[in-house]
């Protein structure tokens, strides 16, 4: 399966506090709180790093989880955030990603 690339939407306000991140959608004021794993993926969402590489370097290296399980969970996670418009998913690298 081809890789995917993720970048932060500009339509948000966000702050990382400790190992967690609070994100608010400026479109509908919905609030999300990311746990440490979610925060690791979020902060690496620069639009140019493949999700599989983010999972390998930021998740598997830091948290005790198998690469396959981590990638499946990460895909579900980013799709959920993308569904709320706070994360953008692309099948090719996006220049100027990470627009916080």
């Amino acid at each position: 399966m081809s890789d995917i690339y993720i970048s932060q939407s500009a339509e948000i306000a966000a702050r990382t506090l400790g190992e967690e991140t609070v994100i608010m959608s400026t479109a509908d004021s919905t609030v999300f709180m990311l746990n440490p794993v979610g925060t690791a993926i979020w902060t690496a969402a620069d639009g140019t790093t493949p999700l599989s590489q983010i999972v390998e370097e930021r998740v598997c290296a830091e948290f005790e989880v198998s690469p396959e399980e981590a990638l499946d969970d990460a895909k579900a996670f980013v799709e959920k955030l993308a569904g709320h418009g706070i994360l953008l998913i692309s099948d090719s690298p996006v220049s100027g990603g990470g627009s916080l």
Partner: protein
Amino acid sequence: MAVSAQHPGTKADHGVVIEIGGLPIEVQTNDAGFERLLRNRYGNYVSPRTARYSLSVDLTEVGGIDADADTEVWLEGDEWRMQRGDFRARWSPAAGQGQVSQSANPYAIDSVLRIVHTLMLADEGGFLLHASSLVRNGKAFLFAGVSGAGKTTMARLAPADVALLTDEASYVRNLDGHYYAFGTPFAGELAQPGRNISAPVAALYLLHKAPENRIEKVDAATAVASLLRNILFFAHQPQLVRRVFEAGCAFVDAIPVSQLSFFPDQRVWDLIG
């Protein structure tokens, strides 16, 4: 969108200055009965001061909006527009003036006032919060939560030395970097307006009913997320949302936020103050 207003150039016959949070707004009307209604409803919040802000009310049947429609607020040019089944209104922040077209009921002007206050508060790092707030020993304590969490219960259980600011919508201002809670006439289940006083905010408690009383500090992210989920948002305009987000973060930097697990009897107040 057409919004009817007092005829330009004619001054309303009746004006009632309603001062909430130290921000006086003169509500102008040509209807003596509506003026009496305002004076009755806002009681201790009717102020003798000269108002910097004004809302001109035109009493009329509001057509073209679903009677059950939720409140909508949006920015059009430099003006905020707002509407619900029973009112249409506009508010110019630059002029500090607005017009309201509404039927002769107190709920419409009450909603407009809440919205206008949230817009004014956002400019200075304050907000309206789904929370009861009460004053003890000169300090304000805020109790936030969704419906049923216990906001009104905390107010009902308060001992005699505690003053009620509100059991529904807490009014928080950031004045020179210090947070103050103000009384409001916006009542919840208690159906009782708060005292028209203010006090520095000492703590925010996130309410959780439990078999025993306990206070537990929450981490900063939980505090910010919980606070933001309880801030009254009427307009989803990006700049406004960002300002309120930053206001929530700044508040949590300055004020301790804890979870208050409580059994609903008076002993919970042994932990407060």
